[in-house]
């Protein structure tokens, strides 16, 4: 027993070091993003005060606003102040809502995250079933049907699909609400209002992921260990889901990571189509209102969500494939 603890501890230490390095990369990426966001919002030509107040405003009023927003300080100073405050959860006060930006984010982030997560789960489930079915019926009817459906899915824009879904399920059949959000107090009503947005988000993404799953599974099916599993008398489903799928996961997880970013940015459109009070709708309104601090904080939030997803994908690789763990040094 004592013998086997040794290599495992080494493994744990290596794994810890690997995660630590990824965390450093995670933080550096976010710093780089923050510089880009800050530059885009503050240093590029154009006077925010002029944007907010319009060209009819007086020079005095603009100067007063600049001072109120702290824009008269040097840019470098303002950047570090922004970062310093942001790390402590202070993103400034929203110009258009008159409340701290952090409050707005805390209030609205559950909506966006639940949309993105449920969209991702639905995407993955649909894509895996479709992709594995297609691969196991390679060059037969099942394969053609799945590929045709996914071709359709890839070709349809999400916002158009969402309108068709609303027409059918909300307007004609009246099964689901056409938009709006009843609040989290009634979980059933909340889930009902999330169904159509989730489906609109997920269908297009799952069409893409189904193709990745299919081709990755087809590549794995050729391997000898799949023949071993068949020779062991396992059912087709067991061979596919327990032996083929895990080995096909690396490319699938990579795409899922990228798609999560697409889903999060997709919420901007979908939340507007369905009138859902999330970060996507908030960023849309803040841009219209020229609400500088809010937009800046929200872009940063979206970046954090996407970079976190990629960080999790990196960790997932090592959890999926023990051979990568050996190489994490």
């Amino acid at each position: 027993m004592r013998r086997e603890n040794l290599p495992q501890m080494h493994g744990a230490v290596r794994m810890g070091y690997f995660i630590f390095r990824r965390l450093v990369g995670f933080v550096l990426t976010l710093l780089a993003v923050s510089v880009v966001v800050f530059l885009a919002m503050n240093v590029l030509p154009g006077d925010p005060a002029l944007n907010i107040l319009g060209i009819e405003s007086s020079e005095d009023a603009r100067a007063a606003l600049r001072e109120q927003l702290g824009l008269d300080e040097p840019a470098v100073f303002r950047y570090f102040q922004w970062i310093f405050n942001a790390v402590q959860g202070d993103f400034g006060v929203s110009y258009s809502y008159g409340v701290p930006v952090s409050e707005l984010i805390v209030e609205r982030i559950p909506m966006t995250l639940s949309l993105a997560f449920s969209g991702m789960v639905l995407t993955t489930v649909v894509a895996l079933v479709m992709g594995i079915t297609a691969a196991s019926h390679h060059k037969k009817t099942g394969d053609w049907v799945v590929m045709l459906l996914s071709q359709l899915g890839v070709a349809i824009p999400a916002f158009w699909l969402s309108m068709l879904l609303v027409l059918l399920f909300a307007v004609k059949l009246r099964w689901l609400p056409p938009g709006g959000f009843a609040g989290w107090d009634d979980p059933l009503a909340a889930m009902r209002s999330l169904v159509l947005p989730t489906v609109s988000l997920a269908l297009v993404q799952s069409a893409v992921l189904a193709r990745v799953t299919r081709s990755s599974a087809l590549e794995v099916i050729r391997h000898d260990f799949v023949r071993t599993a068949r020779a062991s008398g396992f059912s087709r489903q067991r061979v596919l889901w327990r032996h083929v799928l895990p080995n096909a996961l690396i490319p699938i997880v990579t795409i899922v990571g990228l798609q999560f970013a697409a889903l999060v940015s997709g919420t901007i459109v979908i939340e507007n189509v369905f009138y859902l009070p999330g970060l996507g709708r908030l960023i849309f309104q803040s841009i219209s209102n020229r609400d500088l601090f809010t937009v800046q904080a929200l872009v940063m939030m979206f970046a954090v969500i996407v970079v976190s997803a990629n960080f999790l994908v990196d960790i997932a690789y090592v959890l999926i494939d023990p051979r990568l763990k050996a190489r994490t040094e």
Partner: protein
Amino acid sequence: MIELKNLSVTLGAAAAVRDASLSIQAGDRLGVVGESGCGKSMLALSMMGMVPDALAVSGQITLNGTAMPPRDETAWRPHRARSMAMIFQEPMAALNPLRRIGDTVMEPMRVHLGLSREDAIKRTLDLFAETGIRDPELRLRQYPHQLSGGQRQRVLIALALACDPALLIADEPTTALDANVSLRITDLLVRLSRQRNMALVLISHDLGAVARATKDILVMYGGDIVERGPTAAVLAHPAHPYTKGLLGARPRIEQAAGKRRHLPTIPGSVPGLFDLPKGCRFSGRCSVEMPHCARSKPENVNTEQGQAACHQLKEGHNGG
């Protein structure tokens, strides 16, 4: 136990296996030898009901008295791992790289025999001991890439034995291993076959391994079984020109010690599946070929040692 009658495996007009008949009983140890591409592996796969979809199978396969449709997965599946099991050439590729060794070996016991995890672990450790796997407790938790080639092949053997099959088919089990390890794996297979009264089909192009391990031998060339009989007798007095050539092409210690000379070879190489002669598959490379050999398929002739399919033997038999 398992019987093949006039089994052919064909791809269009080309035959990977032609008219093969054989019968295996409990405790038999049968060697199948021949060059690469002579149909040995197809013969083995047809005994598992696992011939690739692209190829057509004809003839009869009877398993424990039941006729088996060659391609019906649902008919074959209950027999795999339980009636017969197979181990493959590349032990690294044949193991799922993402699974711990223990989980891989336990899976058939848990699925087919319904063993609890504790019972499956116990049985796996027994199998590890039986197949000579070192540090069995540690192996349970390791992944295939952490094992040596010989240990991996032992794991595959343990996996094949998981549900106590009556027949073990080993397709070139030692080709990917070095000579020393290869010898020990061959001996292990013989020992297991004896102890468990389990039939063994050893497919190999290593005549030495087959001579050491098997009681009977099939010599295949170009999809045909060209000679068969008791291993020792056939190898001592081969009747078919191909078997003679194969034996002549083996390196020998006394040759290496004596004066240097080139290893004798069979001239030419095995033609592709579509270029095989219609009659005797060996025509074109045979040293004692007669004009009609390429056209007509030789029948099996009884020899002193067993059977061989060669026109020369037929003529000789008639003449003498």
